[in-house]
């Protein structure tokens, strides 16, 4: 297996220049998630506008995969409806579990398809999912507050 499969250019770019990595002052829900096996941590804010994701911002420490993944997620989900966000999340989850057999739908997942290689490294899947789990948790909480 080629390491470049895992560490695609897009990922290293997002890692070095993470998007939306600054917690917004206001939010509908804030969550803190941990990856107990490696100690990575993330705080993530979500603001909704009706059924639309108005803003996602975050802060945290973690490896390139976890940082890039949440950076990509923020770019991708801001502006989407919750239904679209759900669809994208499900597709991403499925991609992660594909053990390298899928490439991901670029129309739907955009930059996130760059993470397809992670599915071949079982120990890293949790890294890639950390932000997505946090978003899921936060959006449910934000919604329940409305």
């Amino acid at each position: 297996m080629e390491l470049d499969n895992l560490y695609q250019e897009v990922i290293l770019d997002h890692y070095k220049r993470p998007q939306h990595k600054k917690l917004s002052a206001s939010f509908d829900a804030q969550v803190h998630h941990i990856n107990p096996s490696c100690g990575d941590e993330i705080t993530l804010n979500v603001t909704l506008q009706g059924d639309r994701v108005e803003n996602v911002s975050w802060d945290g420490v973690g490896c390139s995969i976890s940082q890039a993944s949440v950076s990509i997620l923020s770019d991708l989900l801001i502006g989407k409806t919750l239904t679209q966000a759900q669809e994208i999340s499900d597709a991403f989850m499925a991609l992660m579990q594909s053990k390298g057999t899928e490439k991901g739908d670029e129309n739907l997942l955009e930059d996130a398809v760059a993470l397809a290689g992670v599915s071949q490294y079982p120990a890293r899947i949790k890294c890639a999912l950390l932000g997505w789990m946090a978003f899921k948790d936060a959006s449910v909480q934000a919604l329940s507050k409305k």
Partner: protein
Amino acid sequence: MPFNAIEVAKDFPILSRTIRDGKRLVYLDSGATSQKPEVVIEAESNFYRLHNAAVHRGAHQLAEEATDAYEGARAIAANFINADVDEVIFTKGATESLNLVAYAMGNAVAGNRFHLTTGDNIVVTEMEHHANLIPWQQLAARTGATLTWLSVTPEGRLDLSNLNQVISEKTKVVALTHQSNVLGTINPLDEINKRAHDVGAVVVLDACQSAPHMPIDVKTLGVDFLTFSGHKAVGPTGVGIFWGRAELLAELPPFLTGGSMIENVTMTTATWAQAPKKFEAGVPNMAQAVGLGAALSYLTKIGMKNIHDHENKLTSILLNKLAEIKNLKVVGPTTTQMRGAAVSFTLGEIHPHDLGQYLDNQGIAVRTGHHCAWPLTRKLGVPATTRASLYLYNTEADIDDLIKGIVGAEKYFG
């Protein structure tokens, strides 16, 4: 492929060794521990030779492979008892599993459904193995709960006539064996489960003597927790299965604490991962879990129903032949109706220890004593018995040799 015990026996290397100066090994002590087929021995060795690394912890290839092998074994074990994979926990054996659930209940704080206190009640039976009795005695002592039990009839069956008194509104847990390791009795679960659940108690099943010998489906069995040891199921020593309903495992506090079972840790506090990890502290018995996976795959391939039918047929033959020996008294059911292949008996005035020694001298391995169920053997007035217990690799020839041996012993000590 029709079941053929003679062919099956060839899978077990130890069965071709000899005993006491050249005698054929007739192994009739599978109730204590079973023998292992070559595929199991090799699964464990291969793990060490090829994939050994700490599971769930490393980001390197060996760790990935070790994790795959370990979690693969969990999936096999789940399939074996028709459980969900996250409901299956690897322990070091049934004794640890039963202590796990008893200690974990002891750790439950007020408000938790497993919390026990004065006024609560724990129910066991008179035919329990020490492993499913003493942990509950200790839990009762620690929490102030009372310990009561279902008694055993002279025929070796559970006396259910006072079921509704013994299991009362105060009962929080009912712990019982699926099959007695002494009597061979298989206990009827439906009535007990119903009464237990009616009063809000959970049922803990000791399946040490059943899961290796018959098909088990936790989705239909009706109990809440179940355990068995790998070493009695053609698996390695040092590994067992503890199963619990997902919603109960979520509420049950952990038992052993340490690495890999945590969510977050500070100097003064810790929170827990979800099951199964919550109950698997430390670097696990990885090679043994993998070996157990190979064992359960082996049994599944042969077919648990085939194994059960084979044992039933042999037990029936054995019971018939034993009935012909005048001074011999079987302790436990004398037909194969709701009974397994552990057959205990006494032989006139000949002490089991002496009978066992004589048989050993013929190459025949049986177990003698109280079989870790001392209250039961005392109750039945037979402080020690001789037990022959059968498994998939036993044959009619083994039974013939046993009968010959018993007759020989009668002459020798007569």
